[in-house]
Each structure stands twice: as C-alpha cells, then as structure tokens.
C-alpha cells in the first residue's frame, strides 16, 4: 500500500542552526501518526516543510504521493492544515469562513454548502454559524478551524497542537471527532505536547530531539521497551532529605526523583526496590502515607529519550499552554 507521507533525510538549516537533522519516516494511508518532542525539537519545522510553508535544505518529502517541493500546489490541494493558532477571519461568520475556504480549494458551491452544514453540525456549531468569529470562544474557534481544514475532504490532515490551551469539553470533542475522521480514512499527522493525548490517539509516534528522531513505534511498543524497569511511587509522613542518596546507592535502582510530596523510584526489580524502601522507613522511623507500583507510560519513554525530567516536561506544557492562551484564539 502506498504511504500517505514519505520522508527521507529531510533537513532544514537556519544559518548555522540545524532545526531538522536528516529525519526519515513513513506514515501509512489511514494511519494516526504523532510527533512528540520538547520545544525547539523541530516538530513545527517538519510540519512546515511537509505542508509547503518552508523549503527543506535537503532531503525529500512526499505527501499524498506528491513531491512537496516540485508539486507543492498539488500537495496543498490534498491536505488540510490546522496550525496552533486558529487563523481564520474574525470579521466573518463561521459560515462565511467555510464558504471562503471551500471556494479557495475549488469545492463546488452545492458541495461546500452541504459539507459545511455537516461539519458544523458535527462540531456542534451549526446554531451559531452566522455569528462573527470575534464572538466565539477559543475552543469554538479551534473547532471551526478544524472544520475548515476538513471541508475539501483532504487525504492527510496535519494538526499542530490542536487542543493546546483549550477547555476539557472542546478538547474531548476535538479528539473524538478527529479520531472519527481518521476511522473514515483520513490520515492524521499530529504534533502535541500532551503525551497522554498522543498515547490515546496515535497508532504510532515518533519522539524527536534536537531535530532527530530518537524513537519511533506504537505507544505500546515504546512502553514495552521500558518493561525491564519498575516504577515505585512512595510518600512519607515527613521530609526525608537523605532518601534519594540512600536509594541511589543501591545498584538495582536506576533513578530517584521527587514530584511534589512523592518520590518516584525507577529500578530494575520492583521487589528489591520496595524492600530497600521498607528498610529505609524502618531505620528512619518513618511512616508510609502511600506506596504503589506503576507500568511505564509514554511519558516515561519520552523522558528517557529526551533526557528531560518530569518537572521540565510539566514546565514545557505550562509554557506552551500559556503561549497558546496569549495568542489570538
């Protein structure tokens, strides 16, 4: 089966900085593919090259069977692009925005009227179709933006941080509808900083760091690559400054980190780690408030490959959310 996206050694330099460094990947038709990475990892530059907004320095990229550099207009006709900012016209109604986009993509008048009605109903906006976008909330604007990207029935849908900074209700609706369109055959290429979102939606994800793909596979496959690790979370009744150094001395313990009041211990063997914790509790006359073991998550995979810690990831998510919130909805 022909791939929806084929990228080979794609590279982008900005002066002496290499934003994307020889990435190679394939996305099958109908697949839901996610690109995860910290800020500045090269996710947006990759999307920009695939959607014809930026010319690559070297390498090749094909989308929907067309060359992104030599057949740019043909590629654009076959894709839908939703950028992080809901960039539609606030001075026009949702309906007029969709009609404009439809006309720009050469959709027949009767078809675009029918399709716009169908999409606005699906995104629960049909009743407010004649309101100017200036009167819409951020979540509503994002829904119109996604509807606009789907109006011409694209083969591939590019979503750059589609739920960033949105309320829970809008985020859920968007995720569920995007998944639905994917089931109907639209290939989806997603970048998100919500690792859980990628875990729920994507058939496969790639983790990028410093412009390179450092891991790729289905979320389950990536998580299973950490199966030789056990994670124990424990909270004590009082502050224990020497807990981290004590546990790190044990050769079976890989890492100890503190997240709020809890400690997270990564170890090769869960049983040995718990024994060590209990020994520490006894000798220091502590009380355990809570203790539990957990399976490695996609976030753990992300942390391992990007070299970030959980606090940095949290900061990264907060930063992106506040940036997105500050932008025009």
């Amino acid at each position: 089966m022909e791939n929806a996206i084929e990228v080979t050694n794609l590279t982008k330099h900005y002066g002496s900085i290499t934003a994307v460094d020889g990435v190679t990947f394939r996305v099958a038709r109908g697949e839901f593919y996610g690109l995860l990475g910290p800020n500045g990892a090269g996710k947006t530059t990759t999307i920009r090259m695939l959607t014809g907004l930026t010319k690559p320095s070297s390498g090749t990229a094909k989308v929907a069977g067309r060359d992104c550099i030599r057949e740019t207009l043909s590629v654009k006709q076959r894709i839908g692009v939703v950028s992080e900012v809901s960039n539609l016209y606030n001075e026009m109604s949702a309906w007029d925005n969709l009609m404009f986009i439809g006309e720009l993509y050469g959709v027949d008048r009767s078809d675009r009227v029918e399709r716009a009605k169908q999409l606005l109903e699906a995104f629960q906006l049909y009743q407010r179709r004649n309101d100017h976008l200036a009167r819409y909330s951020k979540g509503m604007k994002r829904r119109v933006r996604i509807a606009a990207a789907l109006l011409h029935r694209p083969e591939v849908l590019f979503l750059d941080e589609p739920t960033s900074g949105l309320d829970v209700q809008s985020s859920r609706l968007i995720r569920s509808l995007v998944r639905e369109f994917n089931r109907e055959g639209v290939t989806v290429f997603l970048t998100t900083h919500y690792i859980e979102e990628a875990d729920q939606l994507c058939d496969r994800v790639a983790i990028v760091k410093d412009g390179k793909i450092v891991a790729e596979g289905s979320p389950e496959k990536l998580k299973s690559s950490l199966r030789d690790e056990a994670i124990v979370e424990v909270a004590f009744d009082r502050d224990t400054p020497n807990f981290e150094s004590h546990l790190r001395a044990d050769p079976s313990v890989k890492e100890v980190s503190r997240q709020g009041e809890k400690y997270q211990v990564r170890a090769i063997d869960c049983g040995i780690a718990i024994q060590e914790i209990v020994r520490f509790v006894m000798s220091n006359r502590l009380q355990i408030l809570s203790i539990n073991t957990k399976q490695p998550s996609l976030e753990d995979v992300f942390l391992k490959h990007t070299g970030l810690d959980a606090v940095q990831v949290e900061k990264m998510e907060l930063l992106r959310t506040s940036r997105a919130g500050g932008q025009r909805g």
Partner: protein
Amino acid sequence: MVNVGDILSGRLARDVLDFLTKGACIAKKDAKVYYFKPQIFGFGILIPAFVYLAFSLGREIPPGLLVPGLVSMVSLFGASSVEAISIAMEKQTETYELLQTAPVSTAGIVFGKSLAGSAFGIVLSLCTALGAVLLSQSQMVSPIMFVIGIVLGSFAFSALGILVAAAARDMPTANISLTALRLPMIFIGGVFIPVGTLAPGLRLISYLTPLTYMVDALREGMAGPSVALAVDLTVLAAWFVILEALAVVVLNRRTQL
C-alpha cells in the same frame, strides 16, 4: 514556463482560469474583511482629502490640472492603503499562513489582493472624478481612456501597497513607509505643480514614479487620445507588472522561512 503540450491539452487554460477564480475569491474576502476598517478611512480617504484641501484652498487651480491631480491622488491613497493594511493584518494575525497552506501560489494571492485594492481605488476615483468634473464643469473628450487610466493606475498603486507591506515588519511600519513614499510622489508627480515646471533633477525623479504617468494619462484622456496617452498607459501597466512581481519575491522571502 509555458510549453506547447500544456496549451494543446487545455491545461494552460485551466490553470489561468484557476488563477483568476482564486484571485477573485481572495479579492471578495478582502473586500468583506478590510474595506470597512477604520484605518482604510484614515489612510485611504481622510489623509488625501486633507492634503488636497491644504494645498488647493485659496489657490486658483485650472480644471485641467485639478481633476487629473485629485483623482490620481485619491487612487494612490485608496488603492495602496487597502492592501497595505490587509497584508500587514494578515501577517499579524497569521491568516496569511491560511492562504499559504491553500492550493494557490503566492502570485495568485498577490493578484487577488491587488484586485481588491484596485477595485477600492477605482470606485473611489470614479466617484471623485464624477464630482470634480461636474463641479468644475470640465470637458472630457475621451472618458474611456480616462477610465482606463484610473484602472491601470489603481492596479499599480495597489501592487505598491502590497510590496511595501510585504517588506514591512508590522502594520505601523507599513503605514509609515507607505506615507513616506506617497507624500513626495504627490509633490513631484504633477498633482499640484505641473511636472514641466519642476527643476531638472526633480523632473527626472518624477519620471520614476507611477503617479506622474497616471496624472498625465488622465490629463491626456480629458484632452483626447494621443501618443503620449498610449505611452502613459503602457508605463502604468509595466509598473503594475514590476511591482506585482517584486511583491511576490518579497512575500516569499519574508514568509517562507
């Protein structure tokens, strides 16, 4: 590059039709979104009105000079303001990226925008011309040539507005740069002072601005068809093509990072 195969297969005709249709679609949208912005009223209508009043009140200006000068100035400010503001706003609100991701070339986007800007300039200029001709009871020997002059001039000024806004970082810079270009053009372009009476150096510079050719074309149009009129119209058309091409190059450089 155009090849014979494309012409024979009808592909060229389809491409041209597609280019025109998408241009018209962008122009319609621009008219809806930008024609009624307060900045257009300020930079496109109020400023030329004040400039004209400041320099014409108390002076006896013959109708042969008044009508072409006033109409050309209205066209210059009207046509260039709409698209300068539209391009600057589209870049600022990132709606320009929406156009870039659509299956339309930068040339198509620029063409659509110049259609919207020139339509605004044409309507404004025609209304001004009608009022000025009726009030001054001027004679109009060749109204068709006069209208062609307005159309070509408005297209050239619209492309000028797009080019300046494409190069500018933001809207204030675009407006200031455009005003800095337009005001000197008025003084050396024959709006108030006939070009023939300018100092040789200024006269030479005046021949490098499209406004000079529009004022001259309208003056010739009022007097009747002539060789000079044909030259003026050709130069205006060339200005449009050159400014449009430059706008495409600058927009591509500024936005395709």
